[in-house]
């Protein structure tokens, strides 16, 4: 069709020129024809040689140009508006196909003065074309160096068309072929103007095939001819390569260096079992990487064998280039990067922490590649951990040579502050190290695991029930895996229940835990009243003597006597065996009452529950209760004598000392009431209720050994606290102590007085009995009054002294009780307040709240 187009063009051109070139009237036809021919020829040439327009065929852009010119050249925007109208109408016309060309034509037609525009546009064209080969266009143009980038960026003249073809537009189909040939021919045409910016593969030193040959070695971390590893972290690239190739080699160098570092790490051996399994997992992954490298090498070798002598040795055709290697190793590089990251993060960690690090990758990372990778590693890495776990759960043994498990064995304390015995086995032998718990295990899970193992260990060693442990482990033990969380949890729960139940049954049956506890209550907490009464009676005479005259065997004999004569004889012999009487450490001036104590021996493993500290607390309570009992006993005897004496001896002296006796009796009654209330309170309100709670706690079905220990400790604390023995802000023990002392003093004085009056009477009656020296032998610390030497003072004085003393003691007693009541009322515990209320039920005392750091104020 081009021929007819050419014809048509010629025709149209001829026609146009006829109308354009004016006819000068003065010329003749020939000249006119000549002119016309010249014009035609010129036009034809111009058209033929015209290169493609520099500006892209954008209709809107041309319209914009025109509009801009219109706006620029005219004051009023009318013409521009009109043009817009026309333009829109033109656009709607389907006829014209080269709308842009027409508009541009009109625009250039009227664009004559802007010659420099043309010039600059030509410059744009020129500078935009890269230095690709030689083109004819370059000839005959002047170089005007312009800031090409700037002009391109702000190309008001229109976006420059990329000069893909340098040929005129008519030869478009032909030009395409020529374009390709041009490109292929480029490397050949290279040696004439060699441009350093364009990758010139032919001139590579070392040449690309050599690099490709070295590549598999480099990827494995080995030095090769061209690519040398100057150290384990540095790869030296040959400096003679052009920059883009260096860029490619940089990308390829990354997996090489990563692999080198990783293989070094994998070879090293440190860290525990988990670390070793980590290394082995990594080495498996690295092996896969090496497989990839092997494939790559095969490809390269095949490609290199196909090299011909074409440009770049035809390497493009063979299919393996550096670029392609980059693409092939991309995924492997990601994997290697991830591994080296993991290695970095796990530098100082071991055991559970290492697992946590890897698990964090699997858990929280967004990239599924990373997650899968980490999961793969995890199942491998956690295997030694699960082995340790299994052994701990089912055998109770800890096999942890590198201290990686979260349960660690503690060293025995060498000093004596350790609790010793089975307690320390339970409490201190193992401890849970929360920092080493890996994140694949929750905290409660870890606690359970810890308990299970501890219990098993305890059963095996503390309770000597190793056989059960063996049979249990044989039956229940099973393999544990990562990723099998459901089975893991169920098996842990089962193990937990079984172990705990076994432990509790052992405690109950084999070691008679409950029996011991109730025996403790009976004897040490004075629960067995009859036994205590008998004991006290038989011991009272003994214990009044000084402490250094007491003998152990007498005490034991008395104890036996008491046991035989009370219900205690019906207890099991084991219990009775443990009961013993003992003397505490003596100091000067003490009497037997102060150093006597009962003792109950606890043997392991029960002493896990009744700890040595607990035993001490028991003794403390016993001491207190024993003192109270003693006072009660003393007051009781006094009262008895008083009552019986009223009918006998004392009746005779009623006239002289009757009033005194009456008041004395009242005081004694008061004291008796106080002591009774106190005893009742302690025995029933405190001890019994706490005991009930303890029973409850123990009978609960799913209680563990730790629960039992806690319950027992709470029991003892409640007793000591509520029994007014605890160390609180208010000094109950001190007050009680004083009170008791006062009462004893009173009793002594009373006794003394009673004896005195009895003697008076007797002497009066019989005249024979004298004061025996025996009476003076009792060196009561309280009633050691200075001036009450009996031998030298007259009776009246003695009586007066006694009377005064009794009154003083009574007042003292009252005061102290007031203070005690005041303090009791202020206690938050309801039981203590109840005690205060009961003591003061008829408001005979007026309780006083003692202010701190101020002197006592008592309203008698």
């Amino acid at each position, binding site marked *: 069709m081009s021929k007819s*187009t050419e014809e*048509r*063009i010629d025709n*149209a*051109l001829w*026609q*146009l*020129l006829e*109308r*354009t*070139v*004016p006819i*000068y*009237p003065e010329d003749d036809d020939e000249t006119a024809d000549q*002119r016309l021919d010249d*014009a035609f020829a*010129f*036009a034809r040439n*111009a*058209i033929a040689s*015209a*290169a*493609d*327009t520099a500006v892209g065929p954008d209709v809107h852009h041309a319209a914009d140009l*025109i509009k801009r*010119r*219109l706006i620029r*050249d*005219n004051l009023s925007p009318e*013409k521009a508006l*009109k*043009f817009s109208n*026309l*333009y829109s*109408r*033109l656009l709607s*016309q*389907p*006829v*014209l*196909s*080269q709308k842009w*060309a*027409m*508009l*541009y*034509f*009109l*625009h*250039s*037609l*009227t*664009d*004559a*003065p802007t010659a420099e525009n043309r010039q600059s546009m030509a410059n744009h064209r020129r500078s935009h074309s890269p230095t690709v080969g030689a083109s004819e266009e370059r000839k005959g143009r002047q170089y005007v160096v312009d800031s090409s980038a700037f002009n391109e960026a702000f190309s008001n003249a229109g976006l420059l068309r990329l000069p893909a073809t340098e040929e*005129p*537009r*008519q030869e478009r189909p032909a030009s395409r072929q020529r374009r390709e040939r041009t490109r292929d021919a480029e490397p050949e045409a290279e040696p004439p103007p060699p441009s350093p910016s364009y990758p010139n593969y032919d001139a590579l030193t070392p040449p690309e095939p050599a690099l490709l040959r070295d590549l598999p070695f480099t990827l494995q971390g080995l030095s090769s001819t061209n690519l040398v590893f100057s150290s384990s972290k540095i790869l030296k690239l040959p400096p003679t390569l052009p920059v883009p190739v260096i860029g490619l080699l940089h990308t390829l160098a990354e997996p090489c260096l990563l692999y080198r570092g990783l293989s070094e790490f994998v070879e090293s051996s440190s860290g525990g079992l988990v670390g070793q399994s980590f290394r082995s997992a990594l080495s498996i992954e690295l092996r896969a990487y090496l497989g990839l490298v092997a494939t790559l090498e095969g490809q390269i070798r095949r490609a290199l064998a196909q090299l011909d002598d074409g440009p770049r040795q035809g390497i493009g055709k063979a299919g393996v280039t550096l670029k392609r290697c980059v693409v092939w190793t991309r995924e492997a590089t990601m994997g290697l990067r991830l591994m080296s990251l993991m290695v970095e993060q796990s530098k100082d960690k071991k055991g559970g922490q290492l697992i946590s690090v890897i698990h964090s990758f699997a858990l929280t990372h967004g990239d599924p590649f990373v997650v899968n990778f980490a999961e793969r590693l995890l199942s491998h890495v956690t295997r030694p951990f699960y082995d340790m776990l299994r052994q701990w759960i089912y055998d109770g043994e800890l096999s942890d040579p590198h201290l990686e498990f979260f349960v660690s064995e503690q060293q025995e304390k060498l000093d004596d502050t350790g609790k010793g015995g089975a307690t320390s086995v339970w409490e201190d032998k193992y401890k849970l190290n929360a920092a080493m718990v890996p994140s694949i295990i929750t905290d409660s899970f870890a606690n359970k695991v810890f308990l299970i193992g501890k219990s098993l260990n305890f059963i095996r060693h503390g309770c000597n029930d190793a056989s059960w442990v063996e049979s249990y482990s044989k039956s229940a033990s099973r393999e544990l895996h990562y990723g099998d969380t459901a089975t893991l949890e169920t098996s842990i729960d089962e193990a937990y229940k079984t172990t705990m139940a076994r432990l509790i049954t052992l405690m109950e049956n084999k070691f008679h835990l409950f029996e011991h506890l109730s025996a403790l209550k009976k004897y040490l907490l004075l629960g067995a009243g009859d036994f205590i009464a008998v004991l006290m009676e038989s011991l009272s005479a003994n214990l009044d003597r000084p402490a250094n005259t007491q003998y152990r065997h007498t005490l034991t004999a008395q104890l036996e006597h008491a046991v035989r004569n009370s219900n205690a004889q019906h207890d099991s012999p084991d219990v009775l065996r443990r009961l013993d009487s003992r003397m505490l450490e003596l100091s000067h001036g003490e009497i037997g009452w102060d150093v006597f104590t009962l003792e109950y021996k606890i043997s392991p493993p029960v002493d896990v529950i009744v700890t040595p500290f607990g035993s001490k607390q028991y003794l403390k309570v016993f001491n207190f209760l024993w003192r109270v009992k003693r006072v009660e006993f003393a007051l009781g005897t006094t009262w008895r004598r008083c009552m019986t004496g009223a009918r006998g001896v004392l009746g005779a002296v009623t006239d002289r000392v009757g009033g005194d006796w009456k008041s004395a009796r009242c005081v004694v009654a008061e004291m008796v009431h106080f002591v009774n209330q106190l005893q009742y309170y302690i025995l029933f309100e405190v001890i019994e209720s706490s005991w009930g709670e303890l029973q409850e706690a123990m009978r609960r079905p799913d209680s563990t050994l730790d629960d039992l220990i806690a319950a027992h400790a709470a029991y003892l604390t409640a007793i000591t606290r509520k029994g007014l023995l605890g160390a609180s802000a208010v000094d109950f023990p001190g007050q009680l102590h004083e009170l008791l002392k006062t009462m004893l003093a009173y009793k002594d004085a009373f006794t003394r007085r009673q004896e005195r009056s009895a003697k008076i009477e007797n002497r009066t009656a019989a005249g024979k009995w004298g004061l025996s020296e025996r009476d003076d032998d009792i060196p009561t610390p309280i009633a050691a009054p200075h001036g009450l030497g009996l031998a030298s003072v007259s009776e009246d004085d003695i009586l007066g002294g006694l009377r005064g003393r009794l009154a003083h003691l009574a007042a003292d007693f009252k005061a102290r009780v007031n203070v005690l009541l005041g303090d009791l009322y202020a206690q938050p515990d309801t039981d203590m307040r109840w005690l205060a209320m009961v003591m003061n039920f008829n408001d005979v005392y007026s309780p006083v709240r003692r202010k701190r750091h101020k002197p006592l104020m008592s309203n008698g």
Partner: protein
Amino acid sequence: MAPSQPQDADKRQAAREVIDILHEIATLLVALPLPHNTQLNRQQLSYCVSLIENGVNPEALANVIKELRAQYPEPDAEEEGEEET
């Protein structure tokens, strides 16, 4: 009158419209007090359209016309603009 490229009557009508539009645009553009009057008449314009439709480079064509005009100026300014409508 105006040489028509299309073959149908409708197309002829459309072509005429297009020529009209283009002529108006050309008129609009011609407000510059240039030494040579760049006013194209309709015939010239239609020939130009046909040339460009056939693939002539518009820039080259414009250059040609400008050259010719510069080379052979009009004998009279008044004589120009023969509208042979």
